[in-house]
């Protein structure tokens, strides 16, 4: 009885306050605790920066923005409940965020049921914009098909012939592999995958795999090992001279400064990879200004790449609402289809059919610099899907 009293009280709290000039409510959900916090916390910082900037300019449609931020706990069921709460209790107009594929798809499911727009800013699973596509889900992150396409392109460019395919054994790894295989014949006709290995998600011990790759005699590895997986692989493989002769072409944003800056001298040779953002490289003056503002907010010059994704998501939400002259989900959804906006890394367009933005990434080799303790990408190439 006591419990139901609490519930009724909590419900009443949510029901009140309905007046003119209500703020526009934007829900942001990223993992802020546990293993996903490495990505979720900086993404949320970018999300906040965008909202602060918009509010400084008067908000959206002349209304202030109220930001409602939650931990998605990297758990799809918890994320689903939390997103429902944002919609039914806090009455948000739009929801942004997510990290893992499962959380992204769970949020997409709620968005479909509740008819509220959801913009996926980090999840890359291809399903979201193919089989499970619906009216209210959009993606501003890259996806595994783009990433795989670029990786096979690089295999061709570096004239690799014997490839080892190294993917984590879960949705992202399998999808990325599919993306690579789809385009390898076209992009690198002389290359052949001779060995495919799939360490488990969350693996910390890669010793079962390292000798197999070395014995296979590959001249290149196509890898989807991200973040801590890559770091652990490097720590365990480098003593064996693993990276001396093999080109390591990798998705999973391991060229980000978060990893290069931490591994410093341990970062291996012959790595060519991607990142959404590089604090030491600006596309144009407006990009540089964005980096300066972010640096100020985070109190560090060497800003993390994930902030950009949170930032772009909010920018898209704002632009769509302005274009629709409304915060109604149906109108915002219609406005998002085909919408082009200017982002720090250049203009982006959302494909009206797939609801996928043509978010590009910076690709390039990670090289030593005489005056730096860490490696930097040089030359930097911005590759955007057509």
């Amino acid at each position, binding site marked *: 009885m006591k*419990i139901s009293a609490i519930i*009724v009280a909590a*419900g009443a709290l949510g029901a009140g306050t309905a007046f003119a000039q209500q703020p526009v409510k934007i829900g942001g959900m990223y993992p802020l605790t546990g293993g996903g916090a490495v990505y979720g916390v900086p993404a949320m910082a970018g999300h906040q920066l965008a909202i602060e900037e918009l509010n400084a300019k008067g908000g959206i449609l002349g209304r202030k923005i109220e930001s409602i931020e939650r931990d998605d706990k990297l758990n*799809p069921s918890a994320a*689903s*409940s939390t997103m429902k709460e944002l919609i*039914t209790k806090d009455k948000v107009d739009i929801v942004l965020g997510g990290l893992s594929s499962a959380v992204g798809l769970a949020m997409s*499911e709620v968005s479909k049921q509740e008819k509220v727009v959801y913009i996926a800013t980090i999840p890359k699973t291809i399903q979201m914009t193919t089989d*499970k596509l619906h009216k209210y889900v959009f993606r501003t992150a890259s996806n595994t098909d783009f990433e795989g396409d670029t990786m096979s392109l690089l295999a061709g460019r570096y004239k690799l012939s014997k490839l080892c395919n190294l993917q984590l054994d879960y949705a992202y790894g399998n999808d990325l592999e599919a993306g690579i295989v789809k385009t390898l014949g076209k992009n690198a006709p002389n290359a052949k995958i001779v060995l495919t290995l799939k360490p488990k998600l969350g693996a910390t011990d890669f010793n079962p795999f390292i000798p197999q790759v070395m014995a296979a005699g590959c001249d290149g590895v196509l890898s989807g090992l991200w973040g801590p997986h890559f770091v652990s692989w490097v720590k365990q493989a480098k003593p064996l001279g693993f990276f001396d002769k093999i080109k390591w072409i990798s998705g999973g944003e391991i060229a980000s400064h978060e990893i290069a800056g931490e591994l410093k001298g341990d970062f291996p040779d012959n790595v060519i990879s991607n990142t959404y953002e590089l604090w030491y490289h600006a596309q144009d003056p407006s990009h540089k200004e964005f980096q300066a503002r972010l640096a100020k907010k985070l109190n560090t010059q060497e800003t993390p790449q994930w902030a950009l994704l949170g930032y772009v998501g909010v920018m898209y939400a704002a632009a769509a609402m302005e274009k629709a002259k409304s915060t109604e989900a149906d109108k915002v959804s219609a406005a998002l289809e085909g919408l082009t906006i200017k982002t720090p890394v250049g203009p982006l367009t959302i494909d009206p059919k797939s609801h996928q933005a043509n978010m590009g990434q910076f690709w390039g080799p990670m090289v030593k610099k005489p005056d730096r303790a860490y490696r930097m990408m040089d030359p930097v190439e911005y590759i955007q899907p057509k």
Partner: protein
Amino acid sequence: MPQRNQLIASAALVVLLALLPLAGSRYAVDLTTEVLIYALFALSLNVLIGFTGNVSFGHAAYFAIGGYTCAILLTTYRWPLAISLPAAVVLAGLVAAVVGYFCVRLTQIYFAMLTLAFAMLVWGVAFKWKEVTGGDDGFTGINLPAMLTNHVSYFYFTLAVVTVAIAALWVICHSAFGLTLVAVRENNVRTGFIGVDTRRMRWAAFTVAGSFGGLAGALFGMYHRGMYIENAFWTESAQVLIMVLLGGMYSFVGPILGAATLHLLQVFTNQYTTYWPTVLGLILLVIVMVLPDGLIGLVSRVKARWGKT
């Protein structure tokens, strides 16, 4: 007669809950639906812990089997709910019977670890059997009968199912079977001497716990319109165990109290701070230090204070 009072209080609670949608808050209805499902889940685990003294570290397995089975039958095979839901319960119970057969030969922590091992195999199957379960992308887009797609009707459905299930569990736990289980918990050896096949009793309890856990899972999957491998992971088993311990395991209503408290704490702390683990951790710490019998200990202390029996 205390039992009659309990019955009246329970009926009053159900009626009160049934009136909840009239308050007009969609959020309150959803949250209560979640609490009801967790309450059933925790209660099902307590058939094992509270009544046999065996702790399971793998109860999420049956929750997941129930959830996935119901979801897959409804969606992939388009079976009606009237068959899918019972099938989910039966399958969860069957798997629990098989696993239980091996587990009840062990006791204490060895028992607990064996349940964990089996549960992680269930997780592994949900993960790798992608064609059927959707793998780690999860199984989304569950097809619900049209009459249950509305949140209020789903709430009433959950309330009805959970009420019936809890009543059934109450009857089971207070039957001769339940009393024998308590005897097994209190003194395994002596109960054996008086001719009770203690292993078989524990096996039966394991199966009952699994079946009702499966029912909770089925309700959960339909509520979220999705099942995910995280629902079978050991952290989920730990979560429900914490609910039981928090509420108090030697009482019938303890786990219900624990489930409601932990779930609501998790929801509300996340609303106020990203440092919710600290807040939740401190609250739990206080409860453990002050109320070593769980929340139910508080209830009985208050009762004793006010002289009621």
